[in-house]
């Protein structure tokens, strides 16, 4: 909607924000995010110059990484921010996982991703609220969380300030040592140089620099001075990942490690009624067989942790082999008759019955619709889908002498820490989380189910560490799925063919939030399109199926609905899909530039040759903004004589503001497109008798090499503040392909996955 009309009527809470707000904020002083509450732990030869950087006498510069590295490249992107302002030699930059200090709390994920705070409208009330919330969050340790495409956005200020202050302190130390004015010194490539020709390395100066006072103000570089920001720097994690030495959560192998496998009720919400482990217990390598009860979810660690029966054994194979010999009777619970069909019936009948809660309204949509010369309506749906990261869910836990050590791949280590503390009945100061690389996250690794299970198993091993590894079958059947949604759209046109009214109402489960803060219409209610009269509403319909955030959150389904419907409007008006979008985006130059560039790079106006061998080719477009970035994609597809859809080429244009690392941005666009295509072409979780019907990669099929299109990415040059890049590439791809299928065949596919036969 137009900027002036994009104000929201509701306050959305993101993870943890509500809890933080409950604390009396006024008591705390304002502080920068540079000085940690607790001093950093130092290795011999290291000096901490602030809470974000340690410099070693060996000239290594260590970034305190307050983000989970799950493939998105946060470690490399964030390191460049620090190194840029520090004038550091990037080859000497390392990273180390940060602790739980309040300075690392991810304010952008909580504030910037909250639609109330993302408006261009920067009125006094809004600025004041943001300031207060930001101050409060600075005092909440353990809220460093990785998601919402927010790492760069959150740390763009703090890390540059940290780098600039560190640089000033290094220069200060050199100036003092040489007894010269600091203004006669400059810095370059991890050295301080004096006009006289004297120079010293950062490593030589670090210990003295650490004793310098933190500068009260620092000047940050002008973008024209950037040497690292904006450059396609290579990933810092390349070497470890091509030699098999990168340690993921599942690679933890503390001495004396035991392994566990778990069976969970195949029916959602079910639990163990009784079990007989007498045969399994006798098998070699088996240590103990344990029943776990389900654990209720909470606001911060939302989602129920399923119960089950776990075998603890000497090796994963002993555990897996014995588990199948355990006889388990399940209590299937209340969802034993639930099916996908019943859930979709529930969603459509909710839409028949209710007008939904308006998340955005402007003008008089109902009145304008009634007086419209012509209307167009469509109903869309998306199924449940799983995350299926390549590293299966796993967690290693050791509980000894009242304290726990936990090795886990997690997007919110503070959340995991609290969950372990609760499961073990100890204070969270007795829990140490060791975070390695994440073998994919996509939102799945915010949840604590496997962490809670592992913590409870760690009580059963007399102090020995135990690694619980879920099978892929467990992963597919016990996810917190992107919820199934149904959405109805209606557009009204006046007699001149102008789009005068839009109504959209969706129904679906929340992604784990309580209903009152369910941001279900994000990506539908706050698009950049301008309509004179509009109402976007939602009906929250909770079911027994566990649901949760999935790469790009609600944008993933809402972009499919909205961008398919805009295409349908173009068809109804006999207009070119890009031409209609251009009209509706007339107030938004950034969107227009992205769209025009996508049209240009994809040769939008140049028709394909007549179909050969029954293969039909066409292009489809979609544009969507999310997480602070605008992405347009044009998909070129082929439909074979057998009605198979093949995506051959995708042109992707992004305006993410300042491009901190173009290489990583391109990677993330490719990644998001492939991830989105997996869902658009194949992804579907279905339920019968309350049980998920898919089990592994043969029936929940991610895109493979032979299906992968050519992907061309273009980045719009910009010095606007950086936007997110991990997620914004996912939402447009499904509608771009659906729109291309329509262009090729005349068949309008209104549900995912896209199938012509």
């Amino acid at each position, binding site marked *: 909607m137009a900027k002036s009309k994009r104000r929201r009527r509701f306050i959305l809470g993101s993870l943890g924000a509500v809890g933080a707000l409950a604390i009396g904020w006024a008591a705390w002083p304002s502080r920068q995010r540079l000085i940690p509450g607790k001093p950093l732990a130092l290795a011999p030869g290291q000096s901490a110059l602030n809470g974000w950087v340690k410099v070693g006498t060996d000239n290594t510069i260590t970034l305190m990484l307050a983000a989970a590295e799950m*493939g998105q490249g946060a470690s490399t992107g964030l390191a460049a921010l620090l190194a840029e302002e520090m004038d550091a030699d990037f080859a000497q930059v390392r990273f180390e996982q940060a602790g739980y200090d309040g300075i690392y709390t991810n304010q952008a994920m909580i504030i910037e991703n909250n639609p109330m705070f993302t408006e261009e409208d920067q009125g006094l009330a809004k600025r004041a609220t943001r300031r207060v919330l930001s101050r409060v969050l600075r005092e909440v340790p353990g809220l460093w969380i990785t998601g919402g495409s927010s790492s760069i956005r959150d740390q763009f200020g703090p890390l540059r300030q940290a780098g600039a202050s560190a640089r000033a302190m290094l220069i200060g130390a050199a100036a003092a040592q040489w007894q010269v004015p600091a203004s006669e010194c400059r810095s370059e490539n991890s050295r301080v140089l004096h006009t006289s020709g004297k120079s010293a390395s950062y490593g030589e100066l670090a210990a003295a620099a650490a004793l310098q006072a933190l500068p009260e103000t620092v000047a940050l570089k002008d973008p024209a001075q950037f040497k690292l920001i904006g450059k396609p720097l290579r990933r810092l994690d390349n070497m*470890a990942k091509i030699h098999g030495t990168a*340690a993921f959560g599942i690679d933890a192998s503390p001495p004396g490690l035991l392994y566990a496998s778990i069976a969970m009720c195949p029916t959602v919400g079910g639990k163990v009624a009784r079990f007989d482990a007498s045969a399994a217990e006798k098998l070699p390598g088996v240590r103990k067989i344990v029943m776990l009860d389900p654990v209720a979810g909470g606001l911060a660690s939302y989602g129920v942790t399923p119960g089950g029966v776990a075998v603890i054994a000497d*090796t994963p*194979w002993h555990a897996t082999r014995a588990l199948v010999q355990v006889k388990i009777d399940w209590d299937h619970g209340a969802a034993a008759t639930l099916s996908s069909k019943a859930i979709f019936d529930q969603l459509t009948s909710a839409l028949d019955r209710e007008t939904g809660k308006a998340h955005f309204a402007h003008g008089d949509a109902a009145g304008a619709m009634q007086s419209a010369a012509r209307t167009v309506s469509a109903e869309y749906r998306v199924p449940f889908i799983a995350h299926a*990261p*390549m590293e299966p869910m796993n967690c290693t836990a050791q509980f000894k002498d009242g304290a726990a050590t936990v090795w886990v791949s997690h997007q919110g280590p503070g959340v995991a820490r609290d969950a372990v503390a609760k499961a073990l009945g100890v204070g969270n100061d007795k829990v140490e989380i060791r975070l390695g690389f994440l073998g994919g996250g996509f939102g799945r690794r915010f949840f604590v189910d496997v962490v809670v299970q592992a913590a409870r198993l760690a009580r059963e091993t007399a102090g020995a560490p135990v690694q619980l590894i879920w099978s892929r079958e467990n992963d597919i059947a016990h996810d917190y799925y992107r919820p199934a949604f149904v959405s109805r759209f209606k557009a009204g046109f006046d007699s001149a063919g102008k789009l005068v009214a839009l109504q959209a109402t969706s129904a679906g489960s929340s992604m784990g939030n309580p209903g009152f803060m369910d941001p279900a219409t994000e990506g539908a209610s706050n698009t950049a399109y301008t309509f004179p009269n509009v109402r976007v509403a939602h009906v929250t319909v909770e079911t027994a199926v566990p649901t949760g955030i999935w790469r790009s959150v609600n944008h993933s389904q809402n972009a499919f609905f909205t961008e398919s419907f805009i295409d349908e409007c173009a068809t109804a008006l006999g207009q070119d899909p890009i031409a209609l979008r251009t009209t509706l985006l007339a107030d938004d130059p950034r969107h227009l530039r992205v769209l025009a560039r996508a049209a240009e790079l994809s040769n939008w106006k140049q028709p394909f040759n007549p179909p050969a061998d029954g293969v039909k080719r066409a292009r489809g477009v979609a544009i969507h903004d999310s997480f602070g970035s605008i992405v347009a994609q044009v998909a070129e597809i082929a439909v074979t004589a057998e009605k198979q859809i093949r995506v051959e080429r995708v042109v992707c244009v992004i305006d993410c503001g300042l491009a901190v690392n173009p290489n990583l941005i391109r990677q993330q666009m*490719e990644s998001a497109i492939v991830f989105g295509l997996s869902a658009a072409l194949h992804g579907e979780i279905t339920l019968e008798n309350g049980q998920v019907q898919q089990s592994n990669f043969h029936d929940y099929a*991610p895109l493979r090499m032979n299906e*992968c299109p050519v992907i061309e990415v273009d980045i719009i040059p910009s010095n606007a503040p950086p936007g997110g890049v991990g997620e914004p590439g996912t939402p447009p791809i499904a509608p771009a392909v659906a729109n291309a299928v329509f262009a090729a065949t005349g068949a309008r596919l209104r549900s995912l996955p896209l199938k012509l036969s």
Partner: protein
Amino acid sequence: MTTLKLNGKTVEVNAEPDTPLLWVLRAELHLVGTKFGCGKALCGACTVHLDGAAVRSCVTPLAAAGDKEISTIEGVSGTQIDALRAAWTDIDVVQCGYCQSGQLMSACALLKQNPNPSDADIDAAMSGNICRCGTYPRIRAAIHQAAKVAGA
């Protein structure tokens, strides 16, 4: 005790003969570069070489290794893997990295057998290796680049 030829050395392992090679490597020998992904030979994360050929170690029982030479990501060597690693970093292939050991082992077996693979050859050899981060376009480019270097 079973004797294995692994990464150019002889090693003795205790695991029972039905144990998948994957778990022998990971849990007994602590060679954790080879990854568990699906347990059903559907994703390729566990790919190792037996006498130079790519196999899925999650469904290969220890007994099937026999006296074949086993190579894992930690021990694989030669012009092909060197060229592949150089191309992998030059093109910045990796993202989360979890599948990459398997991708490299599959790509290496491909180049050993076919020094100049076409796109179709790459599809055939690499489509068993799933990457959820979507590194496929870069893997394809890196294999072509490595083939040029290794063949030069």
